[in-house]
């Protein structure tokens, strides 16, 4: 199929992009790496979009340490994150995630901001920012605001980004010296969306565990987290399976996904040297 776009404009800078979105009569769509949006347009799943191309806005890209937090520009590409020294040191979960995201051609173009704004519940980055307790920075006609990852993901492909707003950056606390960050998932083929996956973070404040591919949004597994804080892996696995509501589709049933989530949690626990009782 051939895409049927309503229009296209390339933004010079952020304020230009916000103006273009404001002028789009509700049909504005932010184009970043295009790895999900263009595919959807080419299947005419999305038509009439007024594309606002932000990909040339250079100050929306790059990784920096700002005080006690790591800040990632929304246009930073997956491949760049995968080889970034600051990411490797302060948010290794994201570097692990990159290895599971699609294939090289997609990682070279896709951006973290695009992936988060797209909010595919089976994608890695949404679950990662949830586990990392990140903050998402939004810019809109009314100014800027921040949304915690826990409040950001609303439904399948739906986020807290309001009409006319652009996701500009993601920030998160720097990993503590003893912090454990680990991503494990099961996919049919390398690069496929996971049938289920876990993002595990253990820091002084406690364990954070998020699940991808197991519901309409990435899920923070609070009941399992509480059990893990008590070093109760058996209880955590049971709790995790209980709080998931994964989909059944042509790849696997909900029952399989629930089972796998528990298997992955046990494997993470064993790998970090936890008691397996």
């Amino acid at each position: 199929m051939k895409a049927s776009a309503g229009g296209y404009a390339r933004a010079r800078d952020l304020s230009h992009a916000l103006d273009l979105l404001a002028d789009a009569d509700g049909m504005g769509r932010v184009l970043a790496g295009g790895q999900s949006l263009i595919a959807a347009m080419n299947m005419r799943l999305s038509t009439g979009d007024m594309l606002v191309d932000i990909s040339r806005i250079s100050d929306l890209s790059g990784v920096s340490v700002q005080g006690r937090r790591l800040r990632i520009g929304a246009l930073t590409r997956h491949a760049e994150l995968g080889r970034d020294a600051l990411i490797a040191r302060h948010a290794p979960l994201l570097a692990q995630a990159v290895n599971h995201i699609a294939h090289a051609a997609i990682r070279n173009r896709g951006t973290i901001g695009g992936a988060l704004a797209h909010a595919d519940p089976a994608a890695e980055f949404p679950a990662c920012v949830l586990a990392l307790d990140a903050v998402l920075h939004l810019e809109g006609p009314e100014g800027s605001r921040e949304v915690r990852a826990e409040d950001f993901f609303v439904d399948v492909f739906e986020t807290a980004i309001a009409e006319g707003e652009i996701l500009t950056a993601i920030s998160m606390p720097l990993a503590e010296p003893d912090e454990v960050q680990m991503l494990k998932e099961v996919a049919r083929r390398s690069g496929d969306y996971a049938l289920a996956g876990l993002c595990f973070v253990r820091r002084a404040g406690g364990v954070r565990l998020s699940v991808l591919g197991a519901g309409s949004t990435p899920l923070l597994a609070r009941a399992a987290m509480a059990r893990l804080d008590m070093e109760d892996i058996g209880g955590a696995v049971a709790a995790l399976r209980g709080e998931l509501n994964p989909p059944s589709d042509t790849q696997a049933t909900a029952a399989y996904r629930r089972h796998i989530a528990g298997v992955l949690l046990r494997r993470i626990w064993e790998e970090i040297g936890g008691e397996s009782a």
Partner: protein
Amino acid sequence: MTISFGNPDRPNSYIGKTVPRPNAGRLVEGRGHYVDDMTLPRMVHVVFVRSPFAHARIKGIEAADALAVKGVLRVFTGADIAKVCTPWVAVLAHLKGLKSPPEHAIAVDRACWVGEPVAAVVATSRAAAEDGAALVEVDFYPLPVTGDMMTALDADTPVLHADMGDNLAFRREHHEGDVDAVMAGAHKVVSARFKTARHTGVTLEPRSILVDWNGAEGQLTAWHATQAPHMIQSVLAQHLGLEEGRVRVICGDVGGSYGIKVHVYPDEVATAAIAKIMGRPVKFIADRLESFTTDIHARDHEIRAKIAVDETGKILAFDIDDWTAIGAYSVYPRTSAIEGNQVVNLCGGPYDFSDYRAKTTVVFQNKTPTCQYRAVGHPIAVAVTEGLVDMAAAELGMDPVAIRRRNMYADDCYPVTSPAKMRFEGLSHHASMDTLVALMDYDGLRLEQAEMRAKGIYRGIGIASFIELTNPSPFMYGIGGARISAQDGCTVRMDPDGSLVALSGVTEQGQGTEAMLSQIVAEGVGVSPSRVRVITGDTQVTPYGGGTWASRGAGIGGEAALQAALALKASILEVAASMLQAQAKALDIRDGKVVDADSGAERLALEELGRIVYFRGDTLPKGLPRELVQTRHFITSEYPFAFTNGVQASYLEVDTDTGIVKLLKHWCVEDCGRIINPQLVDEQIRGGIVQGLGGALYEEIHYDAEGQLLNGSMADYLVPMAGEMPDMVIGHVETPTMESTLGAKGAGEAGTAGAPAAVMNAINDALRGLGAQVTEMPFTPERILRALGKIED
């Protein structure tokens, strides 16, 4: 003339060697020429409005809004097309009882599967045609959907085609001996139920056709991505009311076929009809969603099967009950009964046993039609046979290799006729198995497997012997009344510079046909392959032929090329003998030069001979034959098919907590007779294995109960990809067919035939002892965990 294939040092010894592919550089530089690369003056694009319902009456079509779209020129309904294009009925006389209703290029008043064309929109661009198609309003009245295969013949299941009386398309039962009596008295009888999933071929280049009607010439020209240009010529002529000679089919580069592009598709015929109506070139290129919903599907089978063995592991009988559902119509003109028929023909294939019963039941349903796809029926028959043999071995406590050696036809028993009445000219099951066991270090691998098991790692080894049907004679289609040539031809000519042009009726799909032909012609005449240009795929240019399917390109097309080349060599030598005042039999052609056969001393360069013949023919004796062009055709006559054989092995690891299978290594030893180009053969085997592994682990088309296709994208229909593919070791045994000088049999489908069975047996080998067994493909992580009883619903 003959060739001493046994002597690797013979002159011009290109047959049997890996030589460069003449079209490879062009293709990798992006200079391939596919249908979609073509733009003709006044060309327009057609897009099809397709049924969103699996079964619905078409009560009306309103096109006014579509016609108002800028760029949209015409909207055609089924009735519009039916005025210039007759419907077809895909039955063949030798498939007794096969029935199928008339099928129109565009559905006339009833749509029978999701994706069936119900209207066509023609516009100046594909995008405009899509805009128009979205605005065509079709008033559908949904009808009851027949989806499930096993209940299709039940009394309370709606009959899809009322005129047919029931949903049975075809049934065949073959019974040899007395299976019931043998089963009743056997030491062990093992039974199992197998399922193979609905697949499609997923060609890189989608189906593509560009058709122009030139009224002034009275000629229809179709540029078509096809495997069988002459068959398409015949079909377009017949259904558009033209003489065959007024239809020209040109097939340039093709980006993969796998059987998908050997069939007649309604939308492609409609494109030709529209070109004839509009008198201008019309292009249709399927997009990926259309590929999933309208390319033929295949392999949707469910089989209940039994094997009987005695105490020593001797196979006594097989009893096979195969069911398959073929969608809404039998596919034209090869029909959709062939796959089930092949299952009946091929089960038990490698084994010397006497009592055999096999039945196939082929039913209609409201899904995309199925038809022949690479290795037609073989992966099903091999999985059933080899699965049962392994289960019997396990019951008896026998090693899987030992039970096969106990039962395979002896290498010196040929010719022999199997219980399925297949005639084998010469096979090498035991030599192939010996080669495989050595290649893979079978005993060493068993030790490694046991060591890993002790560490809680579940690895499995799976073996699958197989036979493959290649080089088909008219017994495959022609005797049933189809205008599909089993014969093929080749014309070879020498031009003044001493270079050769070969015109062949077999086609290049990207697999290297032209390389194979160039080296045969080069050796046959006595020049370097770089001096041979090969032309294929043009019905007005090449000799009449069948094209490329059923692994016939090398065995049939190659032999025609060899005979034409040898004939041209004789013609050249006759002229040379006259010029050199020598005996033709004392001369030879080596590396583009006429030489003394005994000494090898150069006598005359071919370009000098060409100069004399073409420009100074006055200096040659009057009456000397000087036709430096020869055509030969070849058809097999002794055997209906040239069977090949081989054996594959898979080594893999099963994660018993996640159900994920990791393929560690794969082996295939194959006997395709004379090997023309070892690299091309090995890559055919590897590519075929990959497709077989796809069927074993990944590929499955899903429909819901309403007949909606659920996974029509590359994200949801999983094809095998490089990351998961194991190293593959390929070995060969060569048993040339005596039907031809060349001795080549086919190699294109062997990999696909055996790989799924090898993987299934390896998984079950890994799971043996855990009380789990899988027989339903693909072996998804979930199916494996369910077999292990690990999933709580």
